[in-house]
């Protein structure tokens, strides 16, 4: 078991597992519940080994009953536990939305503040593995729309490692999105004391010419795009939102006040995307700072097709990010 104290390289998958292990060790009220989290080891291998370490009471395989066990997570939180409910993927979370929106997000309010729901819901999200139209959704924007929820999108090893623990300290429900393309990502783990608060966006790259705003699975693409832009002497700043609700508008506005140009990259379908909300916020809070209209690179408005070439064409890609940024800056 890796100690958070020593600097080590680990994968995103290992980082989440470490976070789970730490949480389970440090608080007896914490337990993990979801489909195949136990005997199977987690559909993406995240919880492999935890069943042997913590037993069936705390690593709890559930039947295929998304609404039932997510609602049970809400109830267990009301009952004094600190449940971590894993919904295998965001695609299946559609079956649990009633419990999340109508119970988890509203009980504090409806009860006049008497009850809180200290629940953490984790789910894998995103496309890129050729899983086709029913298994490739990116619906972070839906969750970010709901008052009463907090929404996190760890895009780095450090955030995968530390966000869960902070989410468990939150008295309110927190939804954590883990992008399927990040699990195999490897990097050096920063010290725990270097970790950022959950509700602040992070500058992943300093720049002066344009702000590239993104989150989750698109961050690696955007960082690569920034490097490519550098070759054309375009110095791009990369802002990783990290927290999708509440949004860190201060950091967004600060960066744009410096670069006067913004491009948002979001794997969600364009219409009604979170990118649209960010653009609207910039319109409202930084309009006079803009030297050009804010642009978006999002997924095309099509259910994700199976074949690799069509899936890639449907999702935000390096080239499109680079060319859109150049267009925006008027530098072909």
């Amino acid at each position, binding site marked *: 078991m890796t100690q958070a104290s020593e600097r080590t390289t680990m994968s995103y998958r290992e980082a989440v597992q470490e976070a789970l292990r730490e949480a389970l060790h440090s608080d007896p009220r914490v337990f993990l519940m979801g489909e195949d989290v136990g005997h199977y080891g987690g559909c993406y291998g995240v919880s492999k080994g935890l069943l042997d370490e913590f037993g069936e009471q705390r690593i709890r395989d559930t039947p295929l009953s998304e609404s039932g066990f997510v609602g*049970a997570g809400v109830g267990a939180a009301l009952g004094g536990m600190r449940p971590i409910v894993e919904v295998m993927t965001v695609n299946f979370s559609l079956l649990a939305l009633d419990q999340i929106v109508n119970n988890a997000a509203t009980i504090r309010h409806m009860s006049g503040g008497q009850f809180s729901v200290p629940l953490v819901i984790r789910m894998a999200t995103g496309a890129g593995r050729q899983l086709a139209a029913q298994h490739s959704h990116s619906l972070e924007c839906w969750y970010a729309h709901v008052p009463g929820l907090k929404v996190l999108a760890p895009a780095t090893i450090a955030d995968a490692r530390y966000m869960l623990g902070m989410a468990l300290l939150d008295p309110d429900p927190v939804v954590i999105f883990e992008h399927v393309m990040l699990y195999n990502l490897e990097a050096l783990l920063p010290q725990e004391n270097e970790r950022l608060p959950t509700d602040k966006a992070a500058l992943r790259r300093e720049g002066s010419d344009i702000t590239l705003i993104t989150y989750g699975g698109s961050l690696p693409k955007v960082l690569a795009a920034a490097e490519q832009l550098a070759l054309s002497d375009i110095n791009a700043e990369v802002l990783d939102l990290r927290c999708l609700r509440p949004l860190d508008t201060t950091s967004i506005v600060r960066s744009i006040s410096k670069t006067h140009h913004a491009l948002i990259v979001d794997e969600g379908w364009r219409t009604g995307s979170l990118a649209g909300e960010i653009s609207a916020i910039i319109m409202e809070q930084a309009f006079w700072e803009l030297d050009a209209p804010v642009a978006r690179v999002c997924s095309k408005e099509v259910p994700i097709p199976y074949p690799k070439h069509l899936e890639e064409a449907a999702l935000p890609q390096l080239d499109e990010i680079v060319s859109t940024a150049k267009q925006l800056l008027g530098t072909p």
Partner: protein
Amino acid sequence: MTPANAKPHVNRNHLLQLLQSMIRIRRFEEKCAELYTLEKIRGFLHLYIGEEAIAVGCNEALQPEDALICTYREHGHALARGIPMAAVMAEMYGKITGCSHGRGGSMHLFDKTTRFYGGNAIVAGGLPLAVGLALADKLQQRNRVTACFFGEGAAAEGEFHESLNLAALWQLPVLFVCENNLYAMGTALNISESEQDIHRKAQSYKIDAETVDGMNVVAVEQAARNACDSIRRDGGPHFLECRTYRFRAHSMFDSQLYRNKAEIQAWQEKGPILQLIKWLREYQQFTDAELETIEQSVEEEINKAVAAAESADFEAITSLSQNVYSEGKP
């Protein structure tokens, strides 16, 4: 609990107390209907009138440390459980002194002190919550019951299926109480279920289940006590199907095209309050004077509750954004 609690309390005082409790709920809701027409109460108002024996009977089997989950038709449960009537009435008014501080209204009565986890307005939406509350008790080795009330209409929902399986699979201390009043809004049970014996559905999950006359408060109390005893003893869930009837419209907007007066009439004659009064008169020399005393004390309490609600304040608009997130951030 002691086995003593298992035998029915058919002694006179206990019966009078049950009667008073039912009359108290009945008169409270009659007043609410009146206040609704006066537009003091708004939104949806779902009356429990005719079904009082279930909340009152079941409440006898519950301990202070137990939990309740109810539907939008929960005034009776809230009053029986012991949420002060003034707090319930103030909530109907949307006043800050309400049991949900005015935010919830008729469909969302909540109370932490009595572990009343709400009025839930999504049909079957409360069942998974009950499963989770019971799971929390089991994981923390607490011998407590979570009572979960819902209508027969909820039995068609997927959340019913998922919740009953989880409760049975994990052997959780949930008392499922189905208030079978034969209609889901205007949809009769026979056009909504292929198996209309709801307790049979529960048995298909290997949950102990039975039906009870929901118009007979003593029968309900007895069944609930037995159920709670077995839950506290063995841990697993229990299911009660209470056969009852809604005397009033589904809500204040219902013109009741789906049923006829005769049917309503017939059920009203079996009403839980009527039945108990008849029985008391017949076997316990229950006098009109005694009834009068009950009615008077109930009326006084209601008048006080209304007066208090009337004079209470509304929450300031400036605090609109409160109660969405807790103050204490991590």
